[in-house]
């Protein structure tokens, strides 16, 4: 009786067979083949490292590592990152506090308090516009729903963190100050520092 979880047929490729061949039994040949593989890898990478470091050939890379805080890989153009509120010419928010985003948000993380706008041609303006990023699921529905193109998720900022849940609530002023990301997706504005962490520790945030 065969178990359904067991392979019943032997694979066609003898290298994948569990039975050892004559030379495989000695193990030594297989070891030497493995050492050849890793040895060639070592010298090829060493040669590229030498080209890069000694001969200054900057296109030669001996490693695939991206040294993250120093280097960033380019983000996709449509990446959904930290939200920002788009500003008008005079710096006031483009948002008219229609509550569309708050309604559509599946995580209920947007909280808006509307107030009168001094300009009578504009209906309303948010007095408060808080996003709880501890709840946000980055679905982007708020951006889709906005009739005024007032909220976008194109800052390229992903490294926001906080020591408390309250620190994850980003207010209108913070969101208004953010700028869209640069051409390769790198953020152009600094990561907002939450209220419970007044000073960044040790090093400045990657810009």
């Amino acid at each position, binding site marked *: 009786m065969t178990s359904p979880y067991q392979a019943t047929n032997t694979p066609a490729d003898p290298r994948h067979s569990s039975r050892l061949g004559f030379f495989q039994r000695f193990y030594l040949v297989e070891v030497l083949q*493995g050492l050849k593989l890793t040895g060639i890898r*070592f010298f090829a990478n060493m040669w590229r490292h030498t080209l890069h470091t000694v001969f200054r050939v900057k296109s030669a890379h001996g490693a695939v*590592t991206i040294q993250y805080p120093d280097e960033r890989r380019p983000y996709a153009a449509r990446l959904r990152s930290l939200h920002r509120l788009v500003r008008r010419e005079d710096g006031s928010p483009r948002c008219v506090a229609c509550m569309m985003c708050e309604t559509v948000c599946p995580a209920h993380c947007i909280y808006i308090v509307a107030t009168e706008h001094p300009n009578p041609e504009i209906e309303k303006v948010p007095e408060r516009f808080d996003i709880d990023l501890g709840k946000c699921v980055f679905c982007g529905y708020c951006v889709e729903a906005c009739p005024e193109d007032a909220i976008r998720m194109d800052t390229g900022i992903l490294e926001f963190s906080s020591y408390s849940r309250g620190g994850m609530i980003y207010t209108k002023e913070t969101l208004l100050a953010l700028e869209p990301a640069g051409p390769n997706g790198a953020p152009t504005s600094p990561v907002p520092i939450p209220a419970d962490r007044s000073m960044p520790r040790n090093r400045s945030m990657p810009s």
Partner: protein
Amino acid sequence: MSGTVLDLLLIALPVAFAMFVVLNFGGILGWVERKQSAIMQDRIGANRASIFGIRILGLLHPVADAIKLLTKEAFMPARADRLMFTLAPFVSVFFALAAFASIPFGDTLRIAGREIQLQAVTLNVGVLYVLAMLSLGVYGLMMAGWSSANNYALLGAQRAAALMISAEIAIGASIMGVVMVYGSLNMQDIARAQGMPLLPQYFGPWIPAWGILTQPLAFLLFLTAGIAATKRIPFDTPEGESEIIGYFVEYSGMEFGMFMMSDFLETVVIAGMTTALFLGGWQVPYLAPSGFAFPWGLEVPLPHLLVTALQVGAFLTKVSVLIWLLMLVRWTLPRFRYDQAMRLGWLGLFPLSILNIVLTGLVLLLLGRTSP
């Protein structure tokens, strides 16, 4: 009076040099291991430790590691045997360090009318001495495993002892062939004999009689058993990071660091011993004590000190290349299961070493001589 002081200094010189080389190799091997494995695996490896922004290829990481280990608490389990627990890492490191003493790193150095053997301790039974020290090293692990009051540590120590016995047997038996060919147990004599031409009646003065040519099977067996003696992958059953952690599971701080260090030191010892027995020791091809004497007739006389420097450099180069090879093995192969390692030691290496002894005896009998 000053002659006595000079004598003492000249005796201390090779010892100090051997200690300097071994300790520095041992200290830097942690960096070598991390960097070499990284290069083999398309990574960068340790490069973050910096002093004022200077990183020098991550070479500061051993320093940072040492500082960290020294400042960490040396924790001891409540039920541990205090004396044995404290003594174990020192025993382990001591025997690993002492094993290097009889490995020659150069020919006789003549300076100020005196002759110095470039070898920390000149012993007629140097080969046996190294074997003895390597075997005694396992006592440190057994003490650590026993005194930790931890079942996993005990399991690791038991595995270490079993592995060490099966490896030592193969090491001893495979060396016998070398001893038969060169007719001495003194490692300096063996290294010196490897400078002679191999079978001059057939090949002329072209090929030096290095151990790897006269004893190729013994070389493979010794290297395999030597890797087992260092207790590193593929023979790291005593440690078994993913299953039992091993004999040092209860150790922390520099005491743990000493166990790690002794593994590296044993790697250096095995590399040094392989160099001395199989790769011609400090021999540079065609370099006689008076200078280069090439077989096509060209002779380049060199001063004595330069010849000695070349020999020591050749020894260090060979050791470095072997360490590279051992690291390559360590980062290529997966770990043997405990029973597989035992089977390889007792049913693979040991009978093959005996076969090698018999074959060597037959060949020596056929050639009708006791030296190459």
